[in-house]
C-alpha cells in the first residue's frame, strides 16, 4: 500500500516544485507519530491502573515506532524547510512541535533503557513520564505560536489525485506503524519470557 501511495503521489499528485513532494511523507508521519504517542498514553494509563506488564510492552513498542516516525517527521520537515525557504530550520509552530515530540520520545527511550532495577519500577516510571509527556504536545503547539512565524506553508492539496495520494499515504504509514508495533510487542513479550525462564 505504501508503494501504491508513493506512486500516486509522485505520478498523479505532483506538487510543483518537485521538492515539495516530501510533504507526502511529512504529513503522514506527523499524524502517525502523534497517534503512537496516544498509544503510549493509553498504554501508560492502562499499566498504572492494572499493573499488567502487557500494557508496558505496548507502550515500549509504540514509543520505539514513534521515535522513528518523529525522526522521519523532523528530517522531512527540515528538507521541506530548506527547499522552500532556504533554511534548515525555522521556529514555526509545526517544526517546534515536531522537535519537542522527538525530544520527548528520545527521553522516553533513554528513561526506559537506563532505569536499573526491577522491571515493574521501570514500567511505572516510564508510564508516569508517558502521561506527563503527552500533555506537553498540545501545550507546545499553543506556546510555539507566540513566536512570529515568518515562514508559512501556503499551498493546499487541490486536485483529487493529490488528496487521494495524501490519504493513501496516511493510511499506509498508519498500517505500517501498527504492524511494527505489533511485531515489536511480540519480540518484547518473547524477550520477557526468555528472561523470566533464565531467571527462574
Amino acid at each position, binding site marked *: 500500500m505504501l508503494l501504491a501511495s508513493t506512486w500516486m503521489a509522485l505520478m498523479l499528485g505532483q506538487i510543483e516544485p518537485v521538492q515539495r513532494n516530501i510533504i507526502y511523507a511529512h504529513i503522514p508521519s506527523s499524524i502517525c507519530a502523534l497517534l503512537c504517542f496516544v498509544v503510549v498514553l493509553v498504554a501508560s494509563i492502562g499499566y498504572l491502573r492494572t*499493573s499488567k506488564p502487557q500494557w508496558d510492552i505496548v507502550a515500549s513498542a509504540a514509543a520505539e515506532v514513534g521515535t522513528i516516525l518523529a525522526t522521519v517527521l523532523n528530517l522531512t520537515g527540515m528538507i521541506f524547510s530548506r527547499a522552500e525557504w532556504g533554511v534548515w530550520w525555522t521556529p514555526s509552530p509545526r517544526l517546534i512541535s515536531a522537535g519537542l515530540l522527538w525530544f520527548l520520545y528520545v527521553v522516553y527511550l533513554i528513561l526506559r533503557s537506563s532505569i536499573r532495577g*526491577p*522491571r*515493574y519500577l521501570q514500567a511505572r516510571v516510564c508510564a508516569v513520564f508517558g502521561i506527563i509527556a503527552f500533555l506537553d504536545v498540545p501545550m507546545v503547539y499553543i506556546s510555539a505560536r507566540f513566536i512570529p512565524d515568518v515562514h508559512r506553508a501556503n499551498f493546499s492539496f487541490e486536485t483529487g489525485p493529490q488528496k487521494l495520494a495524501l490519504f493513501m499515504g496516511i493510511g499506509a504509514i498508519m498500517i505500517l506503524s501498527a504492524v511494527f508495533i505489533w511485531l515489536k510487542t511480540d519480540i518484547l513479550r518473547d524477550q520477557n519470557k526468555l528472561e*523470566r525462564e533464565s*531467571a*527462574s
Partner: protein
Amino acid sequence: MNIAADRNKADDLPKAIRIAGVCKTFGQRAVLNNLSFNMDAAEAVFLCGINGAGKSTLLRIVSGILSPDSGSVKIYGHDIHRNPDTAKSQLGIISHKSMVYPDLTVSENLLFFAALYGVPDRLRRVDELLEDVALSAYRYDRAAILSRGLLQRLSIARAMVHKPSILLADEPFTGLDTQACQYLVAVFDRFTNNGGTIIMTSHDLGLALRNCGRVMVLDKGRIIFDQAKAALDIAGFSQDYLSYARNNECGISG
C-alpha cells in the same frame, strides 16, 4: 494506661489485626501467597523466616505503605488501604533504621512527628516522651550526634508519640549492644502489659522469644508454622529453626 483492654471485651469486636488473603507479587516473583491470620490485642507475635521469606514485605503492607495485589489488612476493623487515616493512627514502627532526621534536634524530631499525627498539646507530649525514654538532657542535641543506643531511644519515642495500640518491630535489635537490647525488651514488655499488640521480626531468636507469646514462621510467602509460645518446646524449636535456616544459608543467632 491500658490501651485496648476494653476493645476485646466481646468476641464480636474487631481483632487488632486481621490479615485476609494477602498476595503480593513483585514483577514475576510471588512474595506473599494468600496470607491470612489474626491477632488479638495485647498479643506479641514473633514473625520469623529466612531472608526473602516475605517478612519485611508483610510489615510494609500492614503499615500501609505498600498495597497488596489482593486481600485486605484491617486494623481494629479499619482497612488500612481504604481508611488509612484511622488505621495508621493506631500503628507505630520501630526498626533498625531510626527514621529520624539527623539535622533536627531530638525535640524537633518529636515535635514534627507529633504534628504529623495530629497529637494535641504537642509540647507537653514531647516533654512526657523525653522523660519516658530518659532523653531530656539531649533535647537540644541534633540527632546526628547521638550514639546508637540513644538514637534507638529517640526512635522509640518517635514511634510512641501518638500512643499507638500496635507496634511493628522490624529487626529492632540489629546493631544494639546488650544494654540497649535489654532496654528495648523492657519497652516491649511494658507495651504489651498495657494492652498493646506487637508484630516483631528479628534474626535474634533469644531476644524475640523473650517478648513474644506467639511464633510464626514464614516461608516463601506462606505461614508454615504458627503456635503459641506456651505450647512450644523452645529449645527444640530453636534447634529445628536454626538447622532450617542453615540449610537455607541464612545468618541467625540463637
